[in-house]
């Protein structure tokens, strides 16, 4: 390139740049849009993602002035990315939260209470009282409940029937579980076992603790547990009993699944077992991944014990402190739980809707899996415990520590006493440090 040519090129480039600056300073829209852009982040599964993106399209169609953009990740990655977004000050406007971890996010000031928007962009008159009280932290409403949720046992109907055993899906006990699981292992092809192994499942232990009389598992100051090692050992022994009888896959198989939240790796989905432990709002997602029909039951009971399972919000949709436009964001949040077209698409996938009008509207159009969900939900009323107070900070780390340390039991690497002591030492350390 000659000197002159280079100079011409530079001046033309400068002129072009100047022109575009001038154009934008005159208020000419660069790409023809003047919309508020709202980001909605959630953790999900393929079925939920499909439905949620469809909901976003419906909302965008109805609100030409707002453009909602969806962001989705698996459960475990969702929270680590949220942490980087908190640090960077670029959380999505609307974030999905769960009851188990929400208190920590409220206490750290990452979310905005909805108080100022109630009666304006957000309607709460028709939301169930239980949904509102669950969304209230430190005296203020922080989240709109997307649906009511409770734990569930999800089983492969074909494999259970083939075993010839029956059980009452509401009142069954751990003894029933053992009987059914062992029978399924016997009647199924090699490599298919009765039930997933909950030895390293903190949620399952929580239910067992509730059944054993520890409905509240943390002390009031959130720095210690109300129970001690014998309860954990009892829980592990119960599962060891089922495992030794052949009701579960070998311990080493189950060890590889400890802490895995993905529906695709659960035994009932992979076909390794006939019984998996999940949540009522996951029934639709699990069915979506399977050929066989699934049924739903309560988590097994402790013979002579108390109710250990409770009804809680499946997820909240919350307003993050990084929102660019709280009016637009809360408008979207409100539509997410009220708008008939949007809630029709969401269906039961995130749990049973907490708005009665939405529930009635959905009834006639439900899929088989959704009908199973509702039927299950109705059947457990009267068999559940009241909702325990929110978990203290550090709860998620404790859950992960349990999932890790309990693998010692599945692999038979150290005694239950040592393992339980190791867990309690680490968990108490986490609570004190939080």
């Amino acid at each position, binding site marked *: 390139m000659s000197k002159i040519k280079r100079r011409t090129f530079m001046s033309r480039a400068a002129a072009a740049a100047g022109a575009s600056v001038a154009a934008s300073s005159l208020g000419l829209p660069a790409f023809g849009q003047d919309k508020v852009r709202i980001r909605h982040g959630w953790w999900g599964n393929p079925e939920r993602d499909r439905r949620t993106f469809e909901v976003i399209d419906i909302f965008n169609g109805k609100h030409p002035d707002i453009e909602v953009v969806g962001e989705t990740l698996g459960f*475990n990655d969702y929270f680590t990315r949220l942490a980087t977004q908190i640090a960077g000050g670029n959380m999505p406007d609307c974030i999905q939260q769960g009851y188990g971890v929400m208190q920590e996010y409220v206490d750290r000031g990452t979310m905005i209470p909805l108080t100022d928007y109630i009666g304006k962009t957000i309607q709460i008159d028709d939301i169930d009282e239980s949904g509102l009280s669950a969304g209230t932290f430190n005296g203020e409403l922080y989240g709109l409940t997307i649906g009511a949720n409770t734990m569930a046992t999800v089983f492969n109907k074909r494999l259970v029937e083939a075993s010839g055993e029956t059980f009452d899906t509401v009142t069954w006990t751990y003894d029933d579980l053992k009987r059914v699981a062992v029978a399924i292992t016997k009647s199924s092809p090699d490599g298919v076992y009765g039930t997933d192994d909950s030895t390293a499942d903190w949620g399952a232990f929580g239910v067992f603790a509730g059944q054993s009389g520890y409905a509240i598992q943390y002390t009031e100051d959130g720095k210690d547990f109300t129970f001690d090692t014998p309860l954990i050992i009892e829980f592990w022994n119960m599962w060891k009993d089922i495992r030794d009888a052949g009701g579960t896959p070998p311990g080493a198989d189950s*060890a590889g699944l400890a802490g895995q939240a993905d529906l695709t790796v659960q035994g009932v989905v992979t076909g390794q077992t006939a019984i998996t432990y999940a949540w009522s709002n996951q029934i639709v997602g699990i069915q979506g991944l399977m050929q066989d029909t699934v049924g739903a039951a309560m988590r097994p009971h402790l013979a002579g014990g108390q109710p250990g399972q409770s009804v809680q919000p499946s997820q909240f949709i919350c307003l993050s402190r990084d929102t660019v436009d709280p009016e637009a964001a809360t408008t979207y949040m409100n539509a997410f739980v009220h708008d008939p077209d949007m809630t029709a698409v969401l269906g039961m996938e995130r749990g049973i809707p907490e708005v009665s009008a939405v529930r009635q509207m959905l009834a006639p159009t439900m899929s088989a899996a959704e009908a199973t969900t509702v039927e299950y939900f109705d059947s457990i009323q009267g068999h559940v415990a009241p909702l325990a107070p929110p978990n203290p900070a550090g709860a998620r780390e404790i859950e992960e520590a349990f999932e890790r340390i309990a693998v010692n039991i599945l692999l038979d690497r150290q005694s239950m006493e040592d393992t339980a002591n190791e867990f309690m030492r680490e968990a108490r350390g986490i609570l004190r440090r939080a």
Partner: protein
Amino acid sequence: MRKFLAKNAPGYIFLTPWLIGFFVLAIGPILISFYLSFTKYDIASPPKFTGLDNFDYMLFWDDRFWQSLKVTFAFVFLSVPGTLIFALAVAMALDKGIRAIGIYRALFYLPSILGGSIAVAILWRQLFSNNGVVNSFLALFGIQGPYWLSDPNYSLYTLVVLAIWQFGSPMLIFLAGLRAIPTELYEAAEIDAAGPVRKFFSITLPLLAPVMFFNLVLQMIEAFKTFNSAFIISDGRGNPLDSLLFFTLYLYNEAFSYFRMGYASALAWVLLLIIAAFTAVAFASSRYWVHYESDRG
């Protein structure tokens, strides 16, 4: 001064993009992380200065810190020699003047390009899963393969094998080094009736020492920093039983899963010091075993 500016100003102007990147994206964060390592910082609220608390906790209270060191050191001591030996062996085989050597070089280099990728880590997970290809292959010979990934006795070895498989870049450097050894030396040795083993230890290895040293330092630093493959294969947590709790993974989880950015920054500085110490030891030792052509008087 004016003369200096007149002469060098254009150079510095052209350097500005790099300088900005260096100060804003490298030096800045490094200094901030140094400050954060003396604070309690939960990401959501401003950091609180806590003096040496983080280091005190790390050294005297934190079992998982020591576990992560154990895992990382074991990995470095197994994977670095493994990679170097394997890379040298392949380089020597390729140095024999095979036809279409370019194709082989490219093929052997391929894993190194893919190796750090998420896809290969996922592939590795499949290969070594309980019913994966490796165990199916072993079953052909009637061997019941172990649970490679969910048994803490084996899990680290699968990652060592993955690291060794990525021998491409040291192999290429060895190959260049081998080519630079004058053939007269081998011819002279052959006249003196030296066998292949003698030639390897008396000619090849000493003359490759500078290249070996270079590869050693680079591989060691890489191995200390291993993250991607460990993250994927251990569910992002060091599973099973912390047997894959690499230092970087522990650091990452402390920062982004458990909201302890201050503590994680302290961990990062400890890793920096460890790598610096090992590199320094390598350099100090090099005067006893690495001899450069120009040294010989």
